[in-house]
């Protein structure tokens, strides 16, 4: 067992709690930096995609994990980010370094604007309102063809920073490092947000809106901020995704994608930054793993490499159901349980994480 003996106030404020914590993250950082020399270009591309989806997952996590507000239409913000970063570069002639943060800003402002009317909704109503907005954006892309290219879609140029271009086929390692850098900055921002008064206000709203209000949290304003921040993160992820895929149209950002994002963070573990990364890894790498497994089965002579349409979605959903039934806290929750067992060895008890029995609390009276 470990006891952290605090000798200085800075220890309460620090990002890392103890030496082992620091060592673990240093190791993780070293592995991430060394990754381009360890794996093939194809897998590196997949890892870049994992990072992009993690940013999107963090965006949704701010809203669902920290503030407790559901959103079934977050692909809309991915779309806003992707379209604005390309349009800012091609129509307004801005460099990527300016267009990228601006895309996040535009997405964030959109998030704040739609938050004003819908943030007062709860539960089902909020879910369906965001769902409707997600569907509307899908159709608005088609209607606003002059800007968005409609069904034909938009081609995203290569990312260009001071004359250095980043292309996932020509120099995948450079692109990986660029996105890794962006991810690290966004994670630090997120982590600091959680430690700020605003982050605490988010948590207060998540746990009980009535008590948060009693404590002096401005509900409407804080919820709007949460929507805005969440949309900004998702918009940044959308901008990167647009550049990464190279071409996108209205069918890239469907309601299915919003739902996938939601499933992603639930599998990873709602309420933690780790969860966004675990979920993104499962979501992106699952098709790759299925493809490898299919090839493996074929070489073993079992099954003749049959391609079943929709098997990715089916397996993804089955994993999700298993998690919801047996480990509602997601991969990160399971990891915390395993870690606690080792840290407390041999004192860990089976019922340590047991939930209290709960009864239905109706949302109709509010």
């Amino acid at each position, binding site marked *: 067992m470990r006891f952290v003996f605090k000798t200085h106030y800075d220890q309460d404020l620090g990002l890392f709690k103890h030496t082992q914590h620091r060592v673990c993250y240093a190791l993780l950082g070293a592995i991430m930096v060394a990754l381009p020399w360890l794996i093939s270009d194809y897998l590196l591309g997949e890892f870049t995609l994992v990072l992009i989806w993690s940013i999107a997952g963090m965006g949704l996590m701010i809203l*669902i994990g920290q503030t*407790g507000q*559901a959103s*079934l239409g977050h692909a809309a913000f991915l779309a806003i980010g992707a379209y604005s970063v390309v349009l800012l570069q091609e129509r307004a002639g801005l460099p990527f370094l300016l267009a990228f943060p601006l895309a996040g800003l535009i997405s964030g402002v959109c998030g704040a604007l739609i938050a004003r*009317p*819908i943030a*007062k*909704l709860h*539960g*089902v*109503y909020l*879910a*369906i*309102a965001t*769902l*409707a*907005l997600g*569907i*509307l954006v899908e*159709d*608005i892309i*088609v*209607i606003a063809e002059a800007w968005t290219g409609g069904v034909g879609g938009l081609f995203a140029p290569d990312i260009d920073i001071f004359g250095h271009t980043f292309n996932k086929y020509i120099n995948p390692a450079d692109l990986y490092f660029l996105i890794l850098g962006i991810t690290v900055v966004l994670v630090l921002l997120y982590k600091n947000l959680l430690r700020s008064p605003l982050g605490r206000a988010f948590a207060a709203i998540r746990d009980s809106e*009535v008590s948060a209000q009693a404590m002096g949290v401005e509900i409407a304003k804080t919820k709007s901020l949460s929507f805005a921040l969440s949309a900004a993160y998702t918009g940044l992820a959308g901008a990167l995704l647009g550049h990464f895929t190279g071409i996108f149209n209205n069918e890239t950002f469907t*309601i299915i994608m919003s*739902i996938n994002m*939601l*499933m992603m963070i*639930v599998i990873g573990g709602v309420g933690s930054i780790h969860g966004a990364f675990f979920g993104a890894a499962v979501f992106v790498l699952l098709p790759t793993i299925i493809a490898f497994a299919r090839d493996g089965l074929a070489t073993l002579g079992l099954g003749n490499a049959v391609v*079943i*349409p*929709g*098997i990715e*979605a*089916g397996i*993804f*959903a*089955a994993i*999700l*159901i298993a998690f*919801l*039934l047996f480990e*509602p806290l997601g991969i990160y929750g399971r990891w915390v349980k395993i870690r606690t067992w080792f840290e407390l060895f041999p004192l860990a008890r089976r019922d340590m994480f047991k*939930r209290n*029995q*709960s*009864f*239905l609390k*109706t*949302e*109709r*009276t*509010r």
Partner: protein
Amino acid sequence: MDFAQLLISGLANGCVYGLIALGFVLIYKATEAINFAQGDMMMLGAFITLALTNDNHMGLPFIPSVLIAIAVMAVFGYLLDALMLRHVFGQPQIAVVILTIAIGYIIRFGAGLIWGHEPQSLHSPLAGQDITIAGIALGLDEIAVIIVTILLTGFLYGFFAHTRTGIAIQAASQNQLAAYYMGVPVRRVYSLVWGLSGVVAAIAGVLFASKGSIDPNTGLLGIKAFAAAVIGGFGSLPGALLGGLIVGVIEPFASRYGPSGYAQIAPYLLLVLVLVFRPHGLLPQVQQKKV
């Protein structure tokens, strides 16, 4: 003439939306869970009927196959609650939403695996027959949809108002703990409600399939029905039907008289407007929260 025909076909479509919405609301009223798989359950019910009655499948007579499909879907709904939904009880509402979405994925995947992804049509005795009343050509299928919806709504009203089980469901929905104390078997009641909504889904599926073709992605129609339920007011059975009818009627008129491209977003536009100005639907069922 044109107007009346659009109205009737809109009403018929609206009845199907209304029936799916009814399934949502039944479950929501009783168990406070939102079943995003309702549309997929409808699709499953339709496919089971199709597999039983179509000549290239089993070729049974129409009415018995519909009854079998209804029974299968009732058991399916019951087991869904008993085996899965019950275990996420008491978790945040979003957990139930995600679970049912995932169940919907699985149903769609399974249906695609068994029946393929090609659109198929149900060989129903109603399909493709027209009768002309006062110069308006009406499809027999459309009339059947409207009549069955009215009958089913009447039946459900009677069930909730006058039977022991119906009143037990109402009790469990109003106060779970108190219902337990009064000896209502709350768990079984909840599973029963899920079974009931399976029945409604199967009927909606058969009606929908006899109006046109179905494929595994038909279940996504559930999203539109969901919008209908919210427009009407989630938690009110007449509201669900009303919302379904509104959405169903708006669609053909928007595509006939509105600018192109806007027809399919009309229901969602209406939904957003309703949510902004009447956040709890047209027929709300909300009281002030007591802390």
